[in-house]
């Protein structure tokens, strides 16, 4: 279907189901229950899941296929965000032009930076991209404050021109990004018993964009272009002596992944119209690297899983405080309750970094292929069980020796 193999079609359909049903899947615990803390089905986080998913998918096109490890990809995310916010400021609050400009601008920057950085490979390439991104961060944070808003970030103001839109809404507030009348923040709630499910326009918009990006990424992976990129990763010498010019291939991959990053940045600004320079800091670039590896570099779905994992930790684990802990362990006798809280406390709330660090280590030690490998192992386990059953059956048929 859609020019994909059977397996890939299943994967796309699966991802489509998961994203469309995310408001249900991510809110498994009833409101008000002790476990409700772990619910992730609120618009902001769901949007973040898919937006960072896009970012990671794009990064993986470069890193997973060509092996070029860019350490400055967050720069393109930042550019996308700035471009989108400027579009909101100058033109209109419709997200389409904003996202388009975001993609175009980040593509242009990627072309420039890629053209220069791809003259080197290996670690030298990584440091070149890092250097560009750090320069852009530094400039955006300080010298370019008039364009970027500096430390505070670029935000909308009531006195923006917004030529195709009103500068302020009827209520005197700054209008919010929307899509032909639908506001990105519009939300419908569905209450079923004590469960509350939230359906948000912005989320579904981003999710559809993510699905399209995911589909395109699969097509790229399975295309001759993808094969060339893998060849470049495997043996660049041979590529050159086979009459192929490796540079345009890698550059194309770089630009595509830069555009994905810009798309993510544009979406981010569309969900929340503020663009901050920290988005471009090296830790942000490092984060997407970690997402990709954590999920499984070079795999299709891995980066999305990795992105989800890290964002979940950041937003959910960090918000658990000692009060909540006490309420969880309230059923225990007092001494034991305090003891349990004392044990768990360093790992949650302000200790969420610690948990994250430990998870990084555990995953990479025990699941060298990332989370995807974990999934595969589980699948294999099941298959083996099935097989074992099958074997038993076939053995039973054989006559005893």
């Amino acid at each position: 279907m859609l020019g994909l193999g059977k397996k890939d079609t299943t994967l796309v359909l699966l991802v489509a189901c998961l994203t469309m049903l995310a408001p249900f899947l991510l809110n498994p615990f009833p409101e008000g229950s002790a476990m409700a803390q772990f619910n992730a089905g609120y618009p902001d986080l769901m949007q973040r899941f898919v937006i960072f998913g896009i970012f990671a998918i794009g990064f993986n096109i470069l890193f997973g296929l060509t092996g070029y490890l860019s350490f400055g990809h967050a720069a393109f995310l930042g550019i996308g965000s700035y471009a989108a916010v400027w579009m909101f400021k100058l033109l209109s609050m419709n997200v389409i032009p904003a996202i388009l400009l975001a993609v175009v601008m980040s593509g242009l920057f990627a072309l420039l930076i890629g053209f220069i950085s791809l003259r080197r490979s290996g670690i030298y390439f990584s440091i070149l991209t890092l250097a560009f991104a750090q320069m852009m961060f530094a400039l955006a944070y300080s010298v370019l404050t008039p364009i970027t808003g500096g430390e505070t970030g670029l935000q909308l103001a009531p006195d923006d021109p917004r030529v195709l839109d009103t500068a302020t809404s009827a209520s005197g507030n700054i209008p919010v990004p929307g899509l032909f009348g639908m506001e990105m923040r519009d939300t419908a709630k569905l209450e079923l018993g004590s469960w509350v499910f939230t359906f948000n326009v912005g989320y579904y918009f981003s999710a559809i964009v993510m699905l399209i990006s995911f589909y395109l990424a699969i097509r790229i992976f399975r295309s001759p272009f993808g094969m060339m990129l893998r060849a470049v990763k495997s043996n660049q010498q041979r590529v050159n002596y086979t009459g192929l010019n490796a540079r345009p291939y890698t550059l194309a991959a770089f630009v595509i992944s830069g555009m994905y990053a810009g798309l993510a940045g544009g979406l981010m600004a569309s969900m929340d119209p503020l663009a901050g320079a920290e988005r471009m800091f090296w830790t942000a670039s490092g984060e997407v690297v970690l997402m990709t590896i954590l999920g499984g570099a070079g795999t299709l779905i891995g980066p999305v899983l990795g992105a989800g994992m890290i964002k979940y930790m950041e937003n959910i684990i960090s918000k658990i405080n000692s009060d909540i802990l006490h309420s969880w362990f309230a059923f225990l006798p007092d001494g034991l309750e305090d003891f349990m809280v004392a044990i768990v406390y360093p790992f949650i709330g302000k200790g969420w970094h610690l948990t994250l660090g430990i998870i990084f280590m555990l995953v990479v030690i025990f699941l060298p292929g990332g989370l995807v490998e974990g999934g595969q192992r589980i699948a294999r386990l099941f298959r083996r069980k099935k097989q074992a059953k099958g074997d038993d059956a076939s053995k039973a048929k054989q006559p005893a020796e």
Partner: protein
Amino acid sequence: QDSGFTNAPTGSTVTLGFNVPQTGPYADEGADELRAYELAVEHLNGGGDGGMMNTFSSKALQGNGILSKKVEYVTGDTQTKSDAARASAKSMIEKDGAIMITGGSSSGVAVAVQALCQEAGVIFMAGLTHSNDTTGKDKRANGFRHFFNSYMSGAALAPVLASAYGTDRKAYHLTADYNWGYTTEEAIRASTEAMGWETVAAVKTPLTQTDFSSYIAPVLQSGADTLVLNHYGGNMVNSLTNAVQFGLRDKQVNGKDFQIIVPLYSRLMARGAGENVKGIFGSTNWHWSLQDEASKAFVQSFGTKYGFPPSQAAHTCYVQTLLYADAVERAGSFAPCAVAEALEGFEFDGLGNGKTLYRAEDHQCFKDVLVVKGKENPDNEFDLLEIVEVTPVEQVTYAPDHPQFAGGALGSCNNGA
């Protein structure tokens, strides 16, 4: 029942969102803010000794929660990044149903979260944010700041500096290269130049700088006799440490002892600079050694609960929580616009800084400002700063359209959904 605004509380409880840095360089400051918030919640719900609720001039608060709803809270981690801060604020609003967001320890975060709250239709009570912009060009109708700002620091410091160091000084500014640095430099320059000081140079330093030696070394050569460090947090600790290392304070220039000034002091950070703060002037919003009844009550209840005195960040966060709760009580509604109206132009006393006004035009509090100095012989490990002067509020008040605060507009309050 209230309704018609974002997260209108329906049950018997009301949820506040405390958004503080729990990781990153300001984690300790954030931890102190969180302590203050927990204390405030305890007091609002009628627990503990009531703290400053007893000294507060408004008596609307009963110790039975807010509008008889028990106060609950959720916490988030700003990481001192505007993106992360907005994400956690959003999750508190969208997921936890927080009706008010408060906290933060940097102006970038405050401005970003303030804009978010404006959009979402909840009240934002800023924590520690000192940049002029928060209530200047980036002010918002749903946002309120109790903390003082760069302009006030300058206005308070200048006369004290003039009397201590004379009016004929040549100042050399090192300024953190971002918004807060810019406004602070501008404010200090304006007020010191007004009393006759000359600014020989102002050099911007990268935020990520850790070693300031190459910025400090040329200071003496420039003929300056005073160094102003428009730095905060880790930058301040490092630049001050470096400056003292270079022995600047032992030098004589233009026949005067060389002096260093740190416009914004924070006790937590001063501790990081150790001995180096001794004798160095700066300003602060509040200090635990203040002897008014309110401050004493606050230090008493905080100190008893946690074993050490509160920081200025803790103080401002505690006060902001009480002010919010009080405004809701007085307005009789949680609706942001009602609360905002109750806060605008509200005059109060008994929260540690003397008589205070929440100005309606820009949602900035006007109150006394403390000029402090690193203490030469501290009595104990918390006794790092001594109060040199309590600058009266009149001296630090400015017109809403003051050029340092130009641009931007409050807009109108937003009740959200």
